């Protein structure tokens, strides 16, 4: 399919001998929001961290199979290149506490030793912060430390930091689970805007969130991809019984 940006072929990940993700075959389309949901410990975060090869940083971690990003196998690409193309936002906002707001936005360049001219930097900061709807709030305090912001603002700052690298895919690992409802709403609103330029993959344990923000939803259970379809179909008329049970709250 031409519209596919990520395609996994028999992708599995392990911690030691314990297989956490089992033979996942999945195609993620460009400019969509894909939600991954499932009960705790179902391997959804591990799968997500496999896409930008963060999984292998953990002790005893390894993975098998292929993940094709625009047709190229990320397992055979250098992880640093992969991570520059695939941005990631974490569960807890993690701006660099030693850097200012503006420095945080361009951290991907500066800390990697890529030189930017002053005007390039200013433009990149304004553009990225505008994209995450943070520019108006912080434009007068750009030289303050990023950690002075509220949790929701920090999370948007982290998103700005990720998109400043101009990746093609953005991965979100439960991006709103540490945020209050108002901040959550502002981040969710952002997803709608971001999908015009990027492809988003969001891990969430919040079904309502998956239903609200995503175009397609994948349901993981015990490391397996149980069902993957349009979000509407998934929630109204799921194919599998497990999905039905999960959605109706018979287990969580």
């Amino acid at each position, binding site marked *: 399919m031409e519209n596919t940006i990520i395609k996994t072929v028999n992708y599995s990940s392990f911690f030691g001998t314990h297989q956490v993700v089992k033979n996942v075959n999945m195609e993620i389309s460009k400019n969509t929001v894909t939600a991954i949901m499932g009960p705790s410990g179902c391997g959804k975060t591990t799968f997500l961290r496999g896409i930008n090869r*963060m999984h292998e*940083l953990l002790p005893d971690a390894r993975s098998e199979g292929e993940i094709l990003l625009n047709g190229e196998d990320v397992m055979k690409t250098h992880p640093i290149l992969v991570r*520059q193309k695939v941005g990631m936002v974490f569960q807890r906002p993690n*701006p660099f*506490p030693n850097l200012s707001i503006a420095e945080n936005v361009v951290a991907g360049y500066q*800390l990697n030793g890529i030189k930017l001219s002053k005007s390039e930097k200013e433009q990149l900061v304004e553009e990225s912060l505008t994209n995450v709807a943070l520019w108006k709030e912080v434009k007068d305090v750009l030289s303050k430390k990023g950690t002075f912001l509220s949790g929701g603002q920090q999370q948007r700052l982290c998103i700005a*930091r*990720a998109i400043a690298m101009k990746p093609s895919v953005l991965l979100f690992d439960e991006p709103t689970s540490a945020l209050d409802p108002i901040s959550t709403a502002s981040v969710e609103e952002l997803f709608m805007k971001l999908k015009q330029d990027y492809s988003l993959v969001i891990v969430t344990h919040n079904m309502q969130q998956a239903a609200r923000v995503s175009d397609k939803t994948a349901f993981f259970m015990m490391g397996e991809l149980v069902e993957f379809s349009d979000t509407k179909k998934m929630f109204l008329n799921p194919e599998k019984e497990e999905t039905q049970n999960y959605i109706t709250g018979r287990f969580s």
Partner: protein
Amino acid sequence: MKNHLNYRIAKTKVMQWLVYLLAFLTVLPLVFILIYIVKAAIGAINWDFIVNIPKPVGEIGGGIANALLGTIIILFFATIIAVPIGILTGVYLSENKTGKLSYWVGMCVDVLQGIPSIVIGIIAYFWLVRPLGSFSAISGSIALAIMMLPIIIRSTEETLKLLPNSLKEAGYALGMPSHRVILRIIIPCGFSGILSGVMLAVARVAGETAPLLFTAFGNPFIETNLGKPMQTLPLLIFNYATSSYEEWQNLAWGASIVLLAMVLSFNLLTKLITRKWKIQL
């Protein structure tokens, strides 16, 4: 029920006062030492005392300029030697929490911390002074650097271990290689902790005498050549306090208070700096 409550309140009071008493007892020796040294030395201290070198027996006056300068020089070079090795080892230990090599390195650091300072002095004597053929300031610096290492390594390691893992992940997720994550994120974020470890190490070895006895040796004159014997405050105190001349004993008292002031102000400075540069996580 009421009685029981009263009993518990009374017990709390007793414990509280016991804690106050013990805390007071801890502070007591420090207060006595300070009072005693200040009383004994206050007469000896003045500007001439700081800028002059000791005079021969029989002459009035004389100071500790040679020892003060020597202490500063020897400590400076000891710090230059110990800081890079110590910080890098600390980073290694905090980055590799498991594994045989880090286990053994950690073990060696603990053992190193337990080696008596006189033994380190004698090792430096056999390894450096004898082959080089002369007592030298630099061999004293190396002996002190060895003593500083465990303190710097452990404080670096403990500081970095406390940094949340999410910071490192943020760096890796931006495509940073691990050496950049360490140099540009981990070390800057733990900077105040690392610095306070370094300062504590300096304060700790500033008063060391034993490793300097057979390395820096001592020198009655001002010496700035690292290859030559050099006087330091602890050596001066050791030599002059045990002499039988009253002038020299007074000189030793004066040197004591200067050394004490140096170490105390270093400790205070450490506290100030770490508070000011602490990074809010």
